[in-house]
Protein backbone atom coordinates (compact mmCIF):
# COMPACT_ATOMS: atom_id res chain seq x y z
CA UNK A 1 0.00 0.00 0.00
CA UNK A 2 1.18 3.50 -0.84
CA UNK A 3 1.69 5.78 2.15
CA UNK A 4 1.82 9.50 1.79
CA UNK A 5 5.26 9.51 3.36
CA UNK A 6 6.79 7.14 0.82
CA UNK A 7 7.67 7.47 -2.87
CA UNK A 8 8.11 4.63 -5.37
CA UNK A 9 11.55 3.17 -6.05
CA UNK A 10 10.86 3.20 -9.79
CA UNK A 11 8.21 4.82 -11.96
CA UNK A 12 5.57 2.70 -13.63
CA UNK A 13 6.33 2.83 -17.35
CA UNK A 14 6.16 0.29 -20.14
CA UNK A 15 9.49 1.45 -21.55
CA UNK A 16 12.59 -0.66 -20.81
CA UNK A 17 14.76 0.49 -17.92
CA UNK A 18 18.07 -0.26 -19.58
CA UNK A 19 20.05 -1.56 -22.50
CA UNK A 20 22.68 -4.08 -21.39
CA UNK A 21 24.99 -5.40 -24.11
CA UNK A 22 22.30 -4.70 -26.71
CA UNK A 23 19.56 -6.44 -24.67
CA UNK A 24 16.41 -4.65 -23.56
CA UNK A 25 15.96 -4.92 -19.76
CA UNK A 26 12.38 -4.47 -18.53
CA UNK A 27 11.52 -2.74 -15.28
CA UNK A 28 10.34 -6.09 -13.86
CA UNK A 29 13.69 -7.73 -14.70
CA UNK A 30 15.49 -4.78 -13.08
CA UNK A 31 13.43 -5.21 -9.88
CA UNK A 32 14.32 -8.90 -9.78
CA UNK A 33 18.03 -7.98 -9.94
CA UNK A 34 17.51 -5.33 -7.24
CA UNK A 35 15.79 -7.76 -4.88
CA UNK A 36 18.43 -10.45 -5.43
CA UNK A 37 21.25 -8.00 -4.59
CA UNK A 38 19.34 -6.50 -1.63
CA UNK A 39 19.20 -9.96 -0.03
CA UNK A 40 23.02 -9.93 0.07
CA UNK A 41 23.30 -6.49 1.72
CA UNK A 42 23.31 -5.57 5.41
CA UNK A 43 20.30 -3.48 6.48
CA UNK A 44 20.57 0.31 6.70
CA UNK A 45 23.80 2.24 6.77
CA UNK A 46 25.61 3.66 3.78
CA UNK A 47 27.63 1.80 1.15
CA UNK A 48 30.07 2.84 -1.55
CA UNK A 49 28.54 2.44 -4.98
CA UNK A 50 31.59 2.02 -7.21
CA UNK A 51 29.96 0.15 -10.10
CA UNK A 52 31.33 1.30 -13.47
CA UNK A 53 28.58 -0.29 -15.51
CA UNK A 54 25.61 2.09 -15.36
CA UNK A 55 23.04 -0.72 -15.12
CA UNK A 56 24.88 -2.33 -12.23
CA UNK A 57 25.22 1.08 -10.59
CA UNK A 58 21.43 1.50 -10.86
CA UNK A 59 20.82 -1.99 -9.42
CA UNK A 60 23.22 -1.28 -6.52
CA UNK A 61 21.69 2.16 -5.91
CA UNK A 62 18.15 0.72 -5.78
CA UNK A 63 19.17 -2.33 -3.68
CA UNK A 64 20.85 -0.09 -1.08
CA UNK A 65 17.70 2.08 -0.96
CA UNK A 66 15.51 -0.99 -0.58
CA UNK A 67 17.57 -2.06 2.45
CA UNK A 68 17.06 1.38 4.00
CA UNK A 69 20.54 2.67 3.18
CA UNK A 70 22.25 5.37 1.10
CA UNK A 71 24.82 5.21 -1.72
CA UNK A 72 28.17 6.82 -1.00
CA UNK A 73 29.61 8.49 -4.11
CA UNK A 74 33.31 9.33 -3.66
CA UNK A 75 34.96 12.17 -5.65
CA UNK A 76 37.65 9.77 -6.89
CA UNK A 77 38.97 6.29 -6.22
CA UNK A 78 42.30 7.26 -4.68
CA UNK A 79 43.04 4.93 -1.77
CA UNK A 80 43.38 7.61 0.91
CA UNK A 81 40.19 9.35 -0.25
CA UNK A 82 38.22 6.10 0.10
CA UNK A 83 39.63 5.36 3.56
CA UNK A 84 38.96 8.92 4.78
CA UNK A 85 35.32 8.60 3.72
CA UNK A 86 35.01 5.04 5.06
CA UNK A 87 36.03 6.27 8.53
CA UNK A 88 32.81 8.31 8.63
CA UNK A 89 30.60 5.35 7.71
CA UNK A 90 31.41 2.43 9.99
CA UNK A 91 30.15 -0.83 8.51
CA UNK A 92 30.17 0.51 4.95
CA UNK A 93 30.66 -2.06 2.20
CA UNK A 94 31.77 -1.31 -1.34
CA UNK A 95 29.54 -2.49 -4.17
CA UNK A 96 31.84 -3.08 -7.13
CA UNK A 97 31.69 -4.68 -10.55
CA UNK A 98 35.38 -4.62 -11.38
CA UNK A 99 37.59 -7.52 -10.46
CA UNK A 100 40.87 -5.62 -10.29
CA UNK A 101 39.82 -2.85 -7.91
CA UNK A 102 42.11 -3.01 -4.89
CA UNK A 103 40.47 -1.48 -1.82
CA UNK A 104 40.50 -2.32 1.86
CA UNK A 105 36.73 -1.90 2.39
CA UNK A 106 34.67 -5.15 2.45
CA UNK A 107 33.43 -5.77 -1.07
CA UNK A 108 30.05 -6.92 -2.39
CA UNK A 109 30.45 -7.91 -6.05
CA UNK A 110 27.63 -6.81 -8.36
CA UNK A 111 27.13 -9.06 -11.40
CA UNK A 112 23.52 -8.19 -12.30
CA UNK A 113 22.81 -8.20 -16.04
CA UNK A 114 19.03 -8.35 -16.29
CA UNK A 115 18.82 -12.14 -16.53
CA UNK A 116 17.65 -12.79 -12.94
CA UNK A 117 14.50 -14.93 -13.13
CA UNK A 118 11.43 -12.87 -12.18
CA UNK A 119 8.41 -15.20 -11.77
CA UNK A 120 6.38 -12.55 -9.98
CA UNK A 121 7.65 -9.00 -10.13
CA UNK A 122 5.28 -8.00 -7.27
CA UNK A 123 4.36 -4.49 -6.26
CA UNK A 124 6.78 -1.61 -6.84
CA UNK A 125 8.71 -1.05 -3.59
CA UNK A 126 8.11 2.22 -1.74
CA UNK A 127 10.92 4.17 -0.08
CA UNK A 128 10.36 6.57 2.85
CA UNK A 129 10.52 10.15 1.58
CA UNK A 130 12.92 11.25 4.32
CA UNK A 131 15.30 8.32 3.85
CA UNK A 132 18.84 9.48 3.02
CA UNK A 133 19.49 8.21 -0.52
CA UNK A 134 22.93 9.49 -1.40
CA UNK A 135 26.03 10.97 0.22
CA UNK A 136 27.89 12.68 -2.64
CA UNK A 137 31.40 13.62 -1.58
CA UNK A 138 33.51 16.42 -3.00
CA UNK A 139 37.19 16.75 -2.31
CA UNK A 140 36.43 19.88 -0.26
CA UNK A 141 38.58 22.89 0.49
CA UNK A 142 39.14 22.18 4.17
CA UNK A 143 41.35 19.12 3.91
CA UNK A 144 38.65 16.51 4.35
CA UNK A 145 36.16 15.23 1.78
CA UNK A 146 32.82 17.01 2.24
CA UNK A 147 29.49 15.15 2.13
CA UNK A 148 26.46 16.52 0.30
CA UNK A 149 23.54 14.32 1.26
CA UNK A 150 20.17 14.05 -0.45
CA UNK A 151 16.95 12.44 0.72
CA UNK A 152 14.81 10.28 -1.55
CA UNK A 153 12.11 13.00 -1.78
CA UNK A 154 14.74 15.49 -2.92
CA UNK A 155 15.95 13.22 -5.75
CA UNK A 156 12.32 12.68 -6.80
CA UNK A 157 11.69 16.44 -6.88
CA UNK A 158 14.71 17.39 -9.00
CA UNK A 159 14.09 14.51 -11.42
CA UNK A 160 10.45 15.53 -11.91
CA UNK A 161 11.54 19.12 -12.61
CA UNK A 162 14.22 18.07 -15.10
CA UNK A 163 12.03 15.54 -16.96
CA UNK A 164 9.44 18.28 -17.44
CA UNK A 165 12.00 20.90 -18.51
CA UNK A 166 13.63 18.68 -21.15
CA UNK A 167 10.41 17.09 -22.38
CA UNK A 168 11.74 13.69 -21.34
CA UNK A 169 8.67 12.91 -19.23
CA UNK A 170 6.70 12.34 -22.42
CA UNK A 171 9.39 11.44 -24.96
CA UNK A 172 11.51 9.00 -22.98
CA UNK A 173 14.10 7.46 -25.27
CA UNK A 174 17.60 6.20 -24.59
CA UNK A 175 20.09 8.18 -22.53
CA UNK A 176 23.63 7.93 -23.89
CA UNK A 177 25.80 9.18 -21.02
CA UNK A 178 29.51 9.98 -21.11
CA UNK A 179 29.56 11.02 -17.44
CA UNK A 180 30.08 8.53 -14.62
CA UNK A 181 27.04 7.67 -12.48
CA UNK A 182 29.07 8.57 -9.36
CA UNK A 183 28.97 12.24 -10.33
CA UNK A 184 25.81 13.99 -9.04
CA UNK A 185 25.00 15.18 -12.58
CA UNK A 186 25.55 11.65 -13.88
CA UNK A 187 23.32 10.16 -11.19
CA UNK A 188 20.50 12.64 -11.86
CA UNK A 189 20.65 12.71 -15.64
CA UNK A 190 21.57 9.14 -16.60
CA UNK A 191 20.17 7.00 -13.77
CA UNK A 192 17.26 8.86 -12.15
CA UNK A 193 15.72 9.94 -15.50
CA UNK A 194 15.40 6.22 -16.22
CA UNK A 195 14.36 5.06 -12.73
CA UNK A 196 11.78 7.80 -12.19
CA UNK A 197 10.91 8.67 -15.79
CA UNK A 198 10.19 6.80 -19.01
CA UNK A 199 13.82 6.94 -20.22
CA UNK A 200 16.08 3.96 -20.88
CA UNK A 201 19.66 4.04 -19.63
CA UNK A 202 22.60 2.60 -21.51
CA UNK A 203 24.78 0.35 -19.34
CA UNK A 204 27.94 1.14 -21.27
CA UNK A 205 29.69 4.48 -20.99
CA UNK A 206 30.91 5.49 -24.46
CA UNK A 207 34.19 7.37 -24.25
CA UNK A 208 35.81 8.03 -27.64
CA UNK A 209 33.86 10.09 -30.20
CA UNK A 210 33.31 7.04 -32.40
CA UNK A 211 31.87 5.12 -29.39
CA UNK A 212 29.46 7.99 -28.76
CA UNK A 213 28.47 8.16 -32.44
CA UNK A 214 27.84 4.39 -32.50
CA UNK A 215 25.73 4.46 -29.30
CA UNK A 216 23.64 7.36 -30.64
CA UNK A 217 23.18 5.51 -33.95
CA UNK A 218 22.19 2.22 -32.27
CA UNK A 219 19.46 3.92 -30.24
CA UNK A 220 18.48 6.81 -32.52
CA UNK A 221 17.05 9.20 -31.74
CA UNK A 222 18.73 9.14 -28.30
CA UNK A 223 19.60 11.90 -25.85
CA UNK A 224 23.29 12.58 -25.31
CA UNK A 225 24.14 13.44 -21.68
CA UNK A 226 27.64 14.81 -21.71
CA UNK A 227 30.16 17.51 -20.79
CA UNK A 228 31.79 20.37 -22.75
CA UNK A 229 34.96 18.26 -22.72
CA UNK A 230 33.39 15.31 -24.56
CA UNK A 231 31.24 17.54 -26.77
CA UNK A 232 34.36 19.36 -27.92
CA UNK A 233 36.04 16.04 -28.78
CA UNK A 234 32.96 15.04 -30.82
CA UNK A 235 33.07 18.35 -32.70
CA UNK A 236 36.74 17.82 -33.57
CA UNK A 237 36.41 14.15 -34.60
CA UNK A 238 35.27 14.80 -38.18
CA UNK A 239 32.49 12.18 -38.02
CA UNK A 240 28.98 12.11 -39.46
CA UNK A 241 26.42 12.02 -36.66
CA UNK A 242 23.07 10.22 -36.47
CA UNK A 243 19.71 11.76 -35.71
CA UNK A 244 19.82 12.83 -32.02
CA UNK A 245 16.88 13.77 -29.77
CA UNK A 246 18.74 16.32 -27.65
CA UNK A 247 22.09 17.08 -26.08
CA UNK A 248 22.37 17.85 -22.37
CA UNK A 249 25.62 19.30 -21.04
CA UNK A 250 26.85 20.18 -17.56
CA UNK A 251 29.91 20.20 -15.24
CA UNK A 252 31.60 23.19 -16.90
CA UNK A 253 30.41 26.24 -18.84
CA UNK A 254 29.75 25.53 -22.51
CA UNK A 255 30.81 28.29 -24.89
CA UNK A 256 28.00 29.61 -27.09
CA UNK A 257 29.90 28.93 -30.35
CA UNK A 258 30.51 25.32 -29.26
CA UNK A 259 26.81 24.91 -28.48
CA UNK A 260 25.91 26.33 -31.90
CA UNK A 261 28.41 24.05 -33.64
CA UNK A 262 27.03 21.02 -31.77
CA UNK A 263 23.46 21.93 -32.73
CA UNK A 264 24.46 22.12 -36.40
CA UNK A 265 26.45 18.89 -36.31
CA UNK A 266 23.88 16.82 -34.39
CA UNK A 267 20.80 18.58 -35.79
CA UNK A 268 19.24 19.10 -32.39
CA UNK A 269 18.92 21.38 -29.37
CA UNK A 270 21.74 21.65 -26.85
CA UNK A 271 20.51 22.23 -23.29
CA UNK A 272 22.91 23.17 -20.54
CA UNK A 273 22.17 22.45 -16.88
CA UNK A 274 23.20 24.79 -14.10
CA UNK A 275 23.80 23.15 -10.78
CA UNK A 276 26.27 22.91 -7.98
CA UNK A 277 27.16 20.25 -5.48
CA UNK A 278 25.45 22.19 -2.71
CA UNK A 279 22.02 22.52 -4.40
CA UNK A 280 22.01 19.99 -7.25
CA UNK A 281 20.58 20.93 -10.65
CA UNK A 282 18.35 24.01 -10.42
CA UNK A 283 18.24 25.68 -13.85
CA UNK A 284 18.91 25.24 -17.55
CA UNK A 285 19.33 27.20 -20.78
CA UNK A 286 19.53 26.62 -24.51
CA UNK A 287 23.07 27.89 -24.78
CA UNK A 288 23.10 28.47 -28.54
CA UNK A 289 20.38 31.12 -28.14
CA UNK A 290 20.15 32.02 -24.45
CA UNK A 291 22.63 33.53 -22.06
CA UNK A 292 20.15 33.67 -19.18
CA UNK A 293 19.53 30.59 -17.06
CA UNK A 294 15.91 29.62 -16.38
CA UNK A 295 15.10 28.07 -12.99
CA UNK A 296 13.31 24.72 -12.96
CA UNK A 297 9.59 25.02 -12.11
CA UNK A 298 9.03 25.33 -8.38
CA UNK A 299 12.47 26.78 -7.62
CA UNK A 300 13.09 30.35 -6.53
CA UNK A 301 16.02 32.61 -5.68
CA UNK A 302 16.31 34.93 -2.71
CA UNK A 303 18.81 37.77 -2.50
CA UNK A 304 20.17 38.09 1.03
CA UNK A 305 22.73 40.73 0.16
CA UNK A 306 25.02 41.64 -2.74
CA UNK A 307 27.31 38.72 -2.10
CA UNK A 308 24.80 36.07 -1.20
CA UNK A 309 21.95 34.55 -3.17
CA UNK A 310 20.12 31.46 -1.99
CA UNK A 311 18.08 28.95 -3.94
CA UNK A 312 15.17 26.89 -2.70
CA UNK A 313 12.80 24.36 -4.20
CA UNK A 314 10.86 21.34 -2.98
CA UNK A 315 14.14 19.39 -2.95
CA UNK A 316 15.79 21.76 -0.46
CA UNK A 317 14.64 21.52 3.18
CA UNK A 318 16.35 24.88 3.71
CA UNK A 319 17.58 27.64 1.38
CA UNK A 320 21.00 26.82 -0.10
CA UNK A 321 23.57 29.55 -0.75
CA UNK A 322 24.86 29.40 -4.34
CA UNK A 323 28.66 29.35 -4.58
CA UNK A 324 28.72 31.31 -7.84
CA UNK A 325 28.44 34.97 -8.66
CA UNK A 326 24.79 35.31 -9.71
CA UNK A 327 22.89 38.29 -11.09
CA UNK A 328 19.11 38.03 -11.08
CA UNK A 329 17.24 39.15 -14.18
CA UNK A 330 13.68 38.42 -13.04
CA UNK A 331 11.86 35.90 -10.86
CA UNK A 332 12.78 32.95 -13.04
CA UNK A 333 15.99 33.96 -14.83
CA UNK A 334 19.55 34.81 -13.87
CA UNK A 335 23.07 35.34 -15.21
CA UNK A 336 26.06 33.44 -13.92
CA UNK A 337 29.29 35.43 -13.73
CA UNK A 338 31.67 32.70 -12.76
CA UNK A 339 32.91 30.47 -10.06
CA UNK A 340 35.18 31.54 -7.23
CA UNK A 341 38.80 31.51 -8.41
CA UNK A 342 39.66 28.69 -6.04
CA UNK A 343 37.49 26.23 -7.97
CA UNK A 344 39.31 24.32 -10.69
CA UNK A 345 37.56 22.37 -13.40
CA UNK A 346 39.52 19.87 -15.48
CA UNK A 347 37.54 17.85 -18.02
CA UNK A 348 34.40 18.37 -15.95
CA UNK A 349 35.92 17.33 -12.63
CA UNK A 350 36.15 19.87 -9.87
CA UNK A 351 38.73 20.47 -7.20
CA UNK A 352 39.74 23.24 -4.89
CA UNK A 353 43.11 24.83 -5.61
CA UNK A 354 43.67 25.50 -1.92
CA UNK A 355 43.03 21.86 -1.12
CA UNK A 356 45.40 20.62 -3.84
CA UNK A 357 48.12 22.95 -2.52
CA UNK A 358 47.51 21.69 1.00
CA UNK A 359 47.83 18.08 -0.15
CA UNK A 360 51.04 18.87 -2.06
CA UNK A 361 52.64 20.57 0.93
CA UNK A 362 51.59 17.74 3.25
CA UNK A 363 53.84 15.28 1.40
CA UNK A 364 56.86 14.46 3.57
CA UNK A 365 59.98 15.99 2.01
CA UNK A 366 58.09 18.74 0.14
CA UNK A 367 59.43 22.01 1.58
CA UNK A 368 57.21 24.24 -0.50
CA UNK A 369 55.01 23.79 -3.52
CA UNK A 370 52.24 25.42 -5.48
CA UNK A 371 49.87 24.34 -8.25
CA UNK A 372 49.44 26.58 -11.29
CA UNK A 373 45.94 26.49 -12.86
CA UNK A 374 45.82 26.10 -16.64
CA UNK A 375 45.27 29.11 -18.85
CA UNK A 376 41.50 29.21 -19.43
CA UNK A 377 42.06 30.71 -22.88
CA UNK A 378 44.09 27.75 -24.10
CA UNK A 379 42.20 25.64 -26.66
CA UNK A 380 41.82 21.91 -26.86
CA UNK A 381 41.76 19.14 -24.33
CA UNK A 382 45.22 19.68 -22.94
CA UNK A 383 44.39 22.01 -20.13
CA UNK A 384 46.66 20.78 -17.42
CA UNK A 385 47.68 21.82 -13.99
CA UNK A 386 51.37 22.47 -13.53
CA UNK A 387 53.18 22.57 -10.22
CA UNK A 388 56.38 24.09 -8.93
CA UNK A 389 57.91 22.25 -6.02
CA UNK A 390 60.92 22.63 -3.74
CA UNK A 391 61.71 19.13 -2.48
CA UNK A 392 65.45 18.41 -2.68
CA UNK A 393 65.14 14.93 -1.17
CA UNK A 394 62.20 13.64 -3.22
CA UNK A 395 62.07 12.61 -6.87
CA UNK A 396 59.36 13.75 -9.26
CA UNK A 397 57.98 10.20 -9.40
CA UNK A 398 57.81 10.00 -5.60
CA UNK A 399 55.91 13.28 -5.38
CA UNK A 400 53.45 12.20 -8.08
CA UNK A 401 52.91 8.81 -6.40
CA UNK A 402 52.23 10.51 -3.06
CA UNK A 403 49.74 12.90 -4.70
CA UNK A 404 48.01 10.02 -6.50
CA UNK A 405 47.11 8.56 -3.08
CA UNK A 406 44.65 11.41 -2.52
CA UNK A 407 44.07 13.03 -5.88
CA UNK A 408 42.22 12.18 -9.06
CA UNK A 409 44.71 11.49 -11.91
CA UNK A 410 43.29 14.44 -13.88
CA UNK A 411 44.69 16.82 -11.25
CA UNK A 412 48.21 15.41 -11.18
CA UNK A 413 50.53 18.20 -12.37
CA UNK A 414 52.32 18.16 -15.70
CA UNK A 415 54.90 19.47 -15.80
CA UNK A 416 56.06 19.22 -12.23
CA UNK A 417 58.97 21.64 -12.02
CA UNK A 418 61.63 21.26 -9.32
CA UNK A 419 63.21 24.43 -7.93
CA UNK A 420 65.48 25.21 -4.97
CA UNK A 421 62.99 27.67 -3.52
CA UNK A 422 59.73 29.24 -4.63
CA UNK A 423 59.80 32.92 -5.59
CA UNK A 424 57.61 34.03 -2.68
CA UNK A 425 57.07 37.73 -2.06
CA UNK A 426 57.42 39.43 1.32
CA UNK A 427 53.77 38.62 2.08
CA UNK A 428 54.37 34.94 1.37
CA UNK A 429 52.42 34.95 -1.87
CA UNK A 430 53.78 33.65 -5.15
CA UNK A 431 52.94 36.13 -7.92
CA UNK A 432 51.21 34.32 -10.78
CA UNK A 433 53.36 36.07 -13.38
CA UNK A 434 56.54 34.76 -11.76
CA UNK A 435 55.13 31.25 -11.86
CA UNK A 436 54.18 31.63 -15.52
CA UNK A 437 57.71 32.88 -16.28
CA UNK A 438 59.13 29.81 -14.57
CA UNK A 439 56.81 27.58 -16.62
CA UNK A 440 57.85 29.38 -19.77
CA UNK A 441 61.57 28.97 -19.09
CA UNK A 442 60.94 25.34 -18.36
CA UNK A 443 59.23 24.61 -21.67
CA UNK A 444 61.97 26.42 -23.61
CA UNK A 445 64.62 24.26 -21.96
CA UNK A 446 62.83 21.03 -22.69
Amino acid at each position, binding site marked *: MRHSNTLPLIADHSTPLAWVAGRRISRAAFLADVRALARRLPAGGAHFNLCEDRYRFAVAFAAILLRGGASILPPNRARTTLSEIAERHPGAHALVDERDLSITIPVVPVTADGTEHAPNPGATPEIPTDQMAVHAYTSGSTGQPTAHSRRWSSLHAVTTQALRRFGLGTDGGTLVGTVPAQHMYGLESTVLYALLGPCTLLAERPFFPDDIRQALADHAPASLVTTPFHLDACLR*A*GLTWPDTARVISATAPLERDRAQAAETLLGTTVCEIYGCTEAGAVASRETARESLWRLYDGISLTTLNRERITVQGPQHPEPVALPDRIEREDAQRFRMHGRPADQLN*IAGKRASLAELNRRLNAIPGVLDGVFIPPDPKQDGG*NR*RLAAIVAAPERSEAEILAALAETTD*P*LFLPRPLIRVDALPRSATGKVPRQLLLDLLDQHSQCA
Partner: protein
Amino acid sequence: MEQEVARLIVDSLNLEEVSPEQIEPEAPLFREGLGLDSIDALELALAISRAYGVQIRSDDENNRQIFASLRALTAHIEAHRATS
Protein backbone atom coordinates in the same frame (compact mmCIF):
# COMPACT_ATOMS: atom_id res chain seq x y z
CA MET B 1 56.32 4.26 -38.52
CA GLU B 2 56.86 3.65 -34.80
CA GLN B 3 58.87 6.88 -34.56
CA GLU B 4 56.16 8.72 -36.47
CA VAL B 5 53.54 7.57 -33.93
CA ALA B 6 55.91 8.43 -31.08
CA ARG B 7 56.20 11.95 -32.52
CA LEU B 8 52.39 12.15 -32.76
CA ILE B 9 52.08 11.18 -29.07
CA VAL B 10 54.62 13.76 -27.93
CA ASP B 11 53.16 16.54 -30.10
CA SER B 12 49.47 15.93 -29.47
CA LEU B 13 49.92 15.60 -25.71
CA ASN B 14 52.51 18.36 -25.30
CA LEU B 15 54.85 16.02 -23.45
CA GLU B 16 57.53 18.60 -22.92
CA GLU B 17 59.70 16.33 -20.81
CA VAL B 18 59.85 13.48 -23.31
CA SER B 19 61.33 13.18 -26.79
CA PRO B 20 59.93 10.64 -29.27
CA GLU B 21 63.14 8.60 -29.09
CA GLN B 22 62.74 8.25 -25.33
CA ILE B 23 59.44 6.37 -25.55
CA GLU B 24 60.27 2.72 -25.07
CA PRO B 25 58.39 0.69 -27.69
CA GLU B 26 57.24 -2.00 -25.25
CA ALA B 27 56.64 0.17 -22.16
CA PRO B 28 53.07 0.94 -21.06
CA LEU B 29 51.81 4.35 -22.24
CA PHE B 30 49.32 4.85 -19.42
CA ARG B 31 49.69 4.91 -15.65
CA GLU B 32 53.10 3.49 -14.69
CA GLY B 33 54.73 4.22 -18.04
CA LEU B 34 54.30 7.72 -19.45
CA GLY B 35 51.60 8.34 -16.85
CA LEU B 36 48.93 9.26 -19.37
CA ASP B 37 45.25 9.34 -18.39
CA SER B 38 41.78 9.60 -19.87
CA ILE B 39 42.19 13.17 -21.18
CA ASP B 40 45.31 12.01 -23.00
CA ALA B 41 43.56 8.95 -24.40
CA LEU B 42 40.87 11.14 -25.92
CA GLU B 43 43.37 13.67 -27.28
CA LEU B 44 45.53 10.91 -28.74
CA ALA B 45 42.50 9.25 -30.36
CA LEU B 46 41.62 12.56 -32.07
CA ALA B 47 45.19 13.00 -33.30
CA ILE B 48 45.26 9.45 -34.66
CA SER B 49 41.97 9.91 -36.52
CA ARG B 50 43.27 13.14 -38.07
CA ALA B 51 46.65 11.72 -39.06
CA TYR B 52 45.65 8.21 -40.16
CA GLY B 53 41.84 8.18 -40.49
CA VAL B 54 41.66 5.42 -37.87
CA GLN B 55 38.90 5.77 -35.24
CA ILE B 56 39.77 4.39 -31.81
CA ARG B 57 36.85 2.63 -30.10
CA SER B 58 36.62 1.60 -26.46
CA ASP B 59 34.07 -1.15 -27.01
CA ASP B 60 36.80 -2.85 -29.00
CA GLU B 61 37.80 -5.91 -26.98
CA ASN B 62 41.43 -5.08 -27.63
CA ASN B 63 41.28 -1.56 -26.28
CA ARG B 64 43.62 -2.14 -23.38
CA GLN B 65 45.95 -3.86 -25.79
CA ILE B 66 45.88 -1.01 -28.30
CA PHE B 67 47.12 1.50 -25.74
CA ALA B 68 49.36 -1.03 -24.01
CA SER B 69 52.52 0.29 -25.67
CA LEU B 70 53.84 2.35 -28.55
CA ARG B 71 54.44 -0.87 -30.50
CA ALA B 72 50.88 -2.14 -29.95
CA LEU B 73 49.38 1.23 -30.88
CA THR B 74 51.48 1.41 -34.06
CA ALA B 75 50.44 -2.12 -35.02
CA HIS B 76 46.77 -1.24 -34.50
CA ILE B 77 47.03 1.87 -36.67
CA GLU B 78 48.85 -0.02 -39.43
CA ALA B 79 46.31 -2.85 -39.43
CA HIS B 80 43.30 -0.58 -39.59
CA ARG B 81 44.78 1.78 -42.09
CA ALA B 82 45.47 -1.17 -44.37
CA THR B 83 41.93 -2.53 -44.27
CA SER B 84 39.97 0.72 -44.42
